[in-house]
């Protein structure tokens, strides 16, 4: 379909179907619809919007139609997102199923797995958690020990995962487990899908420095996982003992997302505006010259970063991109986001340090500032990204 025709169609559909309450431009935790069996909709409008979007396939516009998607091309997906942004329409659904498991299943899943697992993700019926890190497997993820034994008709899983996002609210979990303890560390890992309602699965939220508990510890105590969740639907994604390939592919998606967050969600130009409001102008420029310099530097870097996201997308489309671009974006996006929030806290001064109370919406900025500190840790630390860049792109030798 020609671009302009699709734009008109998308606009008309959004106009007709996106409820007025869902058109406030709300971005951020309190506006997100995560879906899942236990999801409590914040309003009737949120529910209606999810149902209508899912019906159209536009919760996951780029996925094929047969798996609950919209079957849109990359260009059409971008147009739809542009239009949603322009009309300030909230995203109907966000989830780890959409960001991570979906792409991994589309690439590595069998036809039966795709048909069984993808549509409930697209409809927001099943909420997924990610079981990757362990207490002794963080940056060195491939040293993970969570055990998975072949017991004939089922798998038996024993071990612990940590930093499992929202595991206490999730219905299912995708987990990296060790299926061959004798193989080299990257070779004995499998990627398995587990129903969290199974006996022996338990979770415990972790309280963070921001006061929130978005992450959990997740325990597997003699958990029996059927070999097939339904006839022909294997619990293992990809080949047994080749789970590392799936894990790496999925991490690439995660990194791009975290990286894009550094520039995508908030415009840097806001920093100067906010500072001008808080601190005031003198002779037409911000009254604090050193803070002004920091903001201007951040604006240059933030803008350069946004253009780099755009360029790398364009290069990927044109097929001239280089590998490991996701590490470049993850590294810079995470570091930049931290820097941005440090500046926002500098601008806010003592007011933004009020942890409770209506004046700061219970320390909203301060909590976000603390949250950004995880950006350079989650999904592979900044140091791990630099390792990847130096090895894969610069081809510097191992020690």
């Amino acid at each position, binding site marked *: 379909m020609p671009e302009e025709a699709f734009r008109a169609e998308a606009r008309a559909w959004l106009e007709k179907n996106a409820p007025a309450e869902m058109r406030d431009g709300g971005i951020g935790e309190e506006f997100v619809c995560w879906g899942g069996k236990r999801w409590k909709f914040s309003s009737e409008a949120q529910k209606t919007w999810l149902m209508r979007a899912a019906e159209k396939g536009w919760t996951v516009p780029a996925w094929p139609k047969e798996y609950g998607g919209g079957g849109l091309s990359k260009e059409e997906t971008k147009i739809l997102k542009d239009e949603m942004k322009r009309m300030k329409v909230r995203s109907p659904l966000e989830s780890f199923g959409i960001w991570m498991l979906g792409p991994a299943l589309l690439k590595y899943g069998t036809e039966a797995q795709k048909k069984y697992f993808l549509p409930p993700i697209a409809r927001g019926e099943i909420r997924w958690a990610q079981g990757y890190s362990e207490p002794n497997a963080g940056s060195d993820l491939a040293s993970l020990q969570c055990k998975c034994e072949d017991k004939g008709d089922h798998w038996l899983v024993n071990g612990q995962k940590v930093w499992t996002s929202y595991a206490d609210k999730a219905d299912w979990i995708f987990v990296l487990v060790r299926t061959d303890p004798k193989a080299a560390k990257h070779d004995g890992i499998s990627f398995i899908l587990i129903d969290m309602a199974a006996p022996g699965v338990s979770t415990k939220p972790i309280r963070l420095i921001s006061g929130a508990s978005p992450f959990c510890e997740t325990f597997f105590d003699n958990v029996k996982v059927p070999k097939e969740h339904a006839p022909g639907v294997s619990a293992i994604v990809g080949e047994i003992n080749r789970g590392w390939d799936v894990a790496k592919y999925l991490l690439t998606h995660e990194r791009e997302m975290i990286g894009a967050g550094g520039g995508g969600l908030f415009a840097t130009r806001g920093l100067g505006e906010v500072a001008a409001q808080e601190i005031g102008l003198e002779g037409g420029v911000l009254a604090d010259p050193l803070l002004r310099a920091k*903001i201007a530097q951040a604006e240059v870097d933030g803008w350069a970063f946004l253009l780099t996201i755009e360029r790398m997308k364009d290069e990927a489309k044109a097929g001239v991109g280089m590998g490991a671009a996701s590490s470049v974006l993850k590294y810079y996006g995470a570091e930049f986001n931290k820097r941005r929030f440090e500046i926002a806290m500098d601008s806010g001064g003592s007011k933004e340090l009020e942890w409770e109370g209506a004046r700061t919406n219970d320390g909203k900025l301060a909590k976000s500032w603390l949250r950004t500190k995880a950006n350079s840790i989650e999904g592979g630390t900044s140091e791990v990204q630099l*390792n990847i860049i130096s090895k894969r792109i610069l081809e510097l030798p191992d020690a």
Partner: protein
Amino acid sequence: MPLVLTEEQQLLRESARGFLDEKAPVSALRKLRDSRDAVGFSRPLWKEMAEAGWAGVLVEERHGGSDFGFVGAGVLAEEMGRTLTASPFLSTSILAATALRKFANKSQQDALLPKIAAGEALFALAVDETSKHRPAQIAMRAEKSGNGFRLSGDKTFVADGHVADKIIVAARTAGAPGETGGLTLFLVDATAKGVAAERTEMVDSRNAARLKFDRVEATGEDVIGEVDGGAAVLDGVLAAGNAGLAAEMSGAAQAAFAMTTDYLKQRTQFGRVIGSFQALQHRAAQLHVEIELVKSVVLKALQDLDGNFGFAGITCSLAKAKAGEVAKLVSQEAVQMHGGIGMTDEYDIGFYMKRIRVAQEMFGDFAYHADKIARLRGY
């Protein structure tokens, strides 16, 4: 427009790279320096570049140019940045060609653009009067005198000022230093009575001069754009110049970085190649990321100049600021990672550090352009 080069632009890059590697490697600049060459670049090489369409890269075909556009010009500047090629490309083919094509009248264009394309005339742009780029501070006077003007004042940091045939000079027809209004751009013959050029030997061994104007006669026909309307002309010309310098510095930074990673893979200490040390790997990886950001802003600025010339100033400032800052960082890290050999004149890396230092200063450094962006954003 997608932020990628078109196929035609990629081909231009490949052919430019082959040409420059063969005919103008860093050793050519070294030779110009060591022989104290009076011109400061190779005239036969410039002739060849003109024949390849480089001199007229921004000149329309009807004036004999190749008309590759600003992205094309940036591709060439970037490639010349890799090899540190000394040429009149910036002053003649970017600055003067932009001034003439975008702001001059028809008779000026018809007379001069074909000469630029043919490599027959060299130009220089004279703006700065103080050691930091502050165009609003221009004090040079252009006094009304009969039907014309008389220009008096001093200019500094004028690239190719001692070899140019024509000088485009910014002078004040009204207002006082500090005001952007009241500036006018004049085309002056280098041989005109009262013009004196002193070549300044620079850190980077590239061309620059101080110029003195003593009651130099000019007429209304020598004005580019409107009398008192020079600020707008200067904005457009300097935007193009800054994008060109940013592209050149991107190329120089990429070349210096490539030399450095090669060195990290060869140099052995403590029984292992030093590139296996994580302390160096992480610094190298950070430089790689910064260079990726530079490539993006440079291409964006060049595309904006082609697509929306009147509004390209801010992205050109962005490109110049980011490219200058990163290129400086890369050249410093390059010398450090090379260790002692990086400090020797015999090794080429020092030439990159020197050129980048000069290029980032020309037409406004990081602070100048970041300040400009901040003001445009209201803080």
